[in-house]
């Protein structure tokens, strides 16, 4: 079956612009995660969705970052007023269930964001 897909694969934007990154999880997966991979910080957690709710937003680096998930499926990560330090690869992962005994997370190919 289809894996996790993300769009766009690459995004170049100017400092101060807003960007939206999209994630389509594997069908039937209730848990969805966003991570960020950057040279300086490695791979770090951003936000976790269970269904449409986000019980853990602890990894979002600032209030310029927000995310939503609709219909228990597609998720959008929005970055407002982008800064150069936002340049990174944004990865989405989904799993059948989240929680304390989570299932395997399957990752999408990522969106490479470059802020000029």
């Amino acid at each position, binding site marked *: 079956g289809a894996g996790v897909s993300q769009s766009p694969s690459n995004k170049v934007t100017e400092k101060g612009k807003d960007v939206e990154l999209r994630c389509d999880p594997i069908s039937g997966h209730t848990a969805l*995660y966003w*991570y960020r991979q950057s040279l300086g910080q490695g791979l770090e*957690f951003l936000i976790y969705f*269970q269904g449409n709710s986000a019980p853990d937003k602890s990894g979002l680096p600032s209030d310029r970052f927000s995310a939503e998930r609709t219909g228990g499926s597609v998720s959008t990560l929005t970055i407002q007023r982008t800064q150069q330090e936002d340049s990174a690869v944004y990865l989405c992962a989904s799993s059948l269930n*989240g*929680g304390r*005994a989570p299932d395997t*997370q399957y*990752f999408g190919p*990522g969106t490479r964001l470059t802020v000029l």
Partner: protein
Amino acid sequence: AQSVTQLDSHVSVSEGTPVLLRCNYSSSYSPSLFWYVQHPNKGLQLLLKYTSAATLVKGINGFEAEFKKSETSFHLTKPSAHMSDAAEYFCVVSDGLSNTGKLIFGQGTTLQVKP
């Protein structure tokens, strides 16, 4: 807090020789541990996972890892390296404290395989 430490940022081996990528973990709970691989310009792929069953875990492509609680280690091994094994490898622990299943990644080890 839970964390993983990958002891080598870069490992270089010759094709056909054994691979050892080292990982130590810190966890106040019985951890769920994983190894993921990332080939250049590709997504993260699960190699194997430990979830408190057998301590020796076999994964894909001939990789395996042994969970050693006394040493808080979860090293990844392969008897014979192949050129296609060249990639970035991440040791990962699932955050059992947050009840979300979010993953905590090590800094990664780049594996170079020389012909």
